[in-house]
């Protein structure tokens, strides 16, 4: 069973979010990395780019497939995880420390609409069968 930390928020498209003030840190879930397999490169958004909730904003490319990452919230990208350029496998090693980007929330209420850990666990379990 994949790891779904209780303190995070999730999307049906397998992103996780951790909120600190008005900045959300975004990554892909353990379930997503497990489905995709070994990561070989990760294309991150530019700092300063703005996205609406649901926009495709990054690509994670594994041995199996290239997959879009969708912004879970609306806002402006304020930081990206440059370390992933050299070590995309850190997403496989720990999907919850290997964050992709940080985004300044333009509508904090969007976070409340996201899935909690229990609901996401159900989504991930259905998805596995």
């Amino acid at each position, binding site marked *: 069973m994949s790891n779904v930390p209780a303190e995070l928020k999730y999307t049906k498209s397998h992103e996780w979010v951790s909120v600190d003030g008005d900045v959300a840190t975004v990554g892909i879930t353990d379930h997503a990395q497990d489905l995709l*397999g*070994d990561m*070989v*490169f990760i*294309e991150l958004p530019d700092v300063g780019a703005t996205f609406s909730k649901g926009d495709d904003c990054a*690509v994670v*490319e594994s*041995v*199996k497939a*290239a997959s879009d990452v969708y912004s879970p919230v609306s806002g402006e990208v304020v930081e990206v995880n440059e370390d992933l350029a050299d070590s995309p*496998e850190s997403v*496989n090693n720990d999907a919850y420390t290997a964050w992709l980007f940080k985004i300044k929330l333009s509508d904090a209420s969007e976070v409340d609409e996201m899935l909690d850990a229990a609901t996401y666990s159900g989504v991930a379990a259905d998805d596995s069968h």
Partner: protein
Amino acid sequence: MGKQTPLYDKHVVMGAKMVDFGGWDMPLRYGSQIDEHHQVRTDAGMFDVSHMSVVDFTGPDTREFLRKIFANNVDRLTTPGKALYTCMLKEDGNVLDDLIVYYMDENWFRVVFNAATHDKDLAWVQEQAKSFSLEIIEPPNMAMIAVQGPNARVKAGAVFDEPVRSEIASLAPFTAAYFGDLFISRTGYTGEDGFEIILPVSQANDVWRALYGEGVQPIGLAARDTLRLEAGMNLYGSDMDESTSPLESGLGWTVAWDPEGRDFIGRGALEKIRSAGTTKKLVGLILEEKGVLRDHQKVIVNGLDDGEITSGGFSPTLQKSIAFARVSKDIGGTCKVEIRGKHVLATVVKLPFVRNGKPV
């Protein structure tokens, strides 16, 4: 649920992700596909290949029959145990399957066909065999385990007692022999040294467990694919099929034109293709930018479609993406590949990409 090999339960216990492959439930990977790939390049790995089709041809007309249905010439096989790689063609010169044929004795040749092509292969050979005096037999209850890697032969040998241990150590490349119930060949599909072992189902789990005890790690289909891709080995159904001839699939070397009088199935059509001149060929591509080359991506030369990738993936040895592509015969040293709408640069290279664990 698909067909299961005798080692199915082992794969599940070892945590494999199972996938459908030609109607069989097979292990895709047990953990990291890249780690499995390196395991074979640097040490030893084992593959459950029990889904492959083992077929024995026996009887007085066997050699004559195989001279007719294979594009390579079984007359190259005169020593018991010697193996030959060949395509089996249709009348139009296109490829029904690729296979390895072993010479056992003058009345017995053994063939290992692909798994996904089993039904059509058997139907084809039975139809062609009608006017020949021979039997086509699938030995029942067989399993098949491949052990591959620089340490594969030593670690596989350690599983067996003397004198088998010494005897298999002296097995020459591309030959096979029976050791008790075990049919062991020094062949493989990874570009590394090693064995393929055909054995009774009743022994499969014990041999698998003993190999694991020697530090031979299980390897899934995903790493099997990147290993054979690096080694420049074709995959039936991707790199050639019933719509392509061996001449445009990098397999011209497997067609035995001599002697001219050998009228193998597909010969007439192939001779026409050869004299008209082929327009396409299979080449290797190395991606020079970030990304992964994948099957069916378009190859572009001078802004025009020039062909497509037949097999692509990420090479753990080169740390770059590599592919086979069927392109114009006169392609230059570079081309572009369309990946997700963008045109990215690739270098055109000769195969293989990797030999004996090292980039070529």
